[in-house]
């Protein structure tokens, strides 16, 4: 029967020749191939010592930014918590007292601010929702913990240190903040 298309292939049921039945030539050929791999460069990254450089838009552990005077940007508006699809963010707002102007940028601030890193899906919607440029995702990894409670990170872990700022300048160049 003639086939309509010429895509069909004849099945080869060829008997192996004596040399093929001995397997030896094929095995020796295989051994040459593996031997060549002895001299190839390996691509292993020795993890704790060497780390992969993440892309600037990598979405890792969050940071709560301070402004240039060291005041917290966050005003506890709650937009990040609303935007969060995993409901990982909670906060309690507080009113700024007299004399606390060096600590908080505006009259309202977050007394507590918690992100549950086990709930978080690192989508970055909190970052997009934030009108005050207070929360950013960074290229840091969330450290492993032994207890589930330890993954609920409070302000002590999230707010950046004044003297040890976390660079997010490359992130600001991406996405919607580019035109600013």
């Amino acid at each position, binding site marked *: 029967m003639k086939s309509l298309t010429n895509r069909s292939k004849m099945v080869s049921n060829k008997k192996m020749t004596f040399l093929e*039945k*001995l*397997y*030896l030539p094929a*095995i020796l050929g*295989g*051994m040459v*191939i*593996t*031997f060549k*791999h*002895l001299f*190839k*460069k*390996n*691509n*292993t990254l*020795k993890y704790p010592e060497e780390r992969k450089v993440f892309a600037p838009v990598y979405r890792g552990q969050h940071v709560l930014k301070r402004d240039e005077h060291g005041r917290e940007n966050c005003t506890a508006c709650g937009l990040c918590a609303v935007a969060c699809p995993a409901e990982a963010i909670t906060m309690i707002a507080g009113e700024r007292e007299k004399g606390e102007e060096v600590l908080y940028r505006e009259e309202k601030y977050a007394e507590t601010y918690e992100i549950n890193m086990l709930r978080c899906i690192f989508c970055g919607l909190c970052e997009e929702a934030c009108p005050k440029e207070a929360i950013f995702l960074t290229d840091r990894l969330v450290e492993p913990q032994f207890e589930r409670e330890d993954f609920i990170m409070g302000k002590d872990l999230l707010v950046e240190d004044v003297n040890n700022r976390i660079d997010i300048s490359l992130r600001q160049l991406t996405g919607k903040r580019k035109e600013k």
Partner: protein
Amino acid sequence: MDTGLFFEKLILVVLLFTISLVIAMYSTYLERKVAAWFQDRVGPDRAGIWGILQPLADGGKMFFKEDFTPVNADKWLFIIAPGIAMFVALITSSVIPWGPNIYAFGRDIQLQVANVDIGILFIMGFVSIGVYGIMIGGWSSNNKFSLFGAIRASSQMISYELAMGISVITIVLLSGSLALDDIVKAQHGINWFVFKQPVAFIIFFVCALAECNRAPFDLAECESELIGGYHTEYSSMKLGFFLFAEYTNMFISSAVIAVLFFGGYNFPGMDSFSGNWLALMCVAAFFIKILFFIFVFMWVRWTIPRFRYDQLMHLGWKKMIPIALINLLITALVIAFWEGWFN
């Protein structure tokens, strides 16, 4: 009995025991490293510099694992099986000549624990006892998969021992002696038997792979089908013994291959040395050959996928044995013509 001889042999036995164990230990490390190199990886490199302490860590781990015996297992057989495997693996090193005699303390020290006249038969005999370790281990575990593995191992060993034995006979024809010492002495310098008997060498090597249950003939313990085969139910140091016996077997097989086909401790240009220096260099040459063959064992393992069981049996009975027999016949005829028996 001569006390000097007693101490000389005692020291040799202890030394051999230690060397076998250390080489087996570091074969596990080397295996992982070689596998890594062949697969463009790094391999173990955390314990000590280049991961050199990895075998110690593995051994320590083995010791601290729970030593578990299944409820329905035959307890005594279950315990004795790894012992047999280990015993057989270690005892064969006693007849291998490790080097020419050394002159020390006014004595002529032989670097061979026992110069048995039937050396190669001794090795073949003990290696075939090795299957009891596997068989008893698989049987006493009272587990289907273990039994499958054990049966596979025993039928595989029976089918490959024949071809192995026949290829050894060709060597015995050439050397005219069963004693390993004489076989080595017959291959003085570079006069190695592999050049006269390449076919016998290939058959012996393939059979050695099968005897050691190494890939591509590791059907007895294939992880994917039989979840470890005969040692599925074993844990702790009992499992360690089985794994260790496998690597010791590999060491001994490499030594036997070197002795039978690659001149044992002989190396080209050995006539220009003499005395203890010669002996030391011979031992070094022998160990280099052994290490090379251990490497080849690993090389083969990380190159070829496992044979299917029927392929294994076909290869053993329908290819290896006929080829070995023809090779034996031709060798015998050539020797007969050479000696002038037909004149």
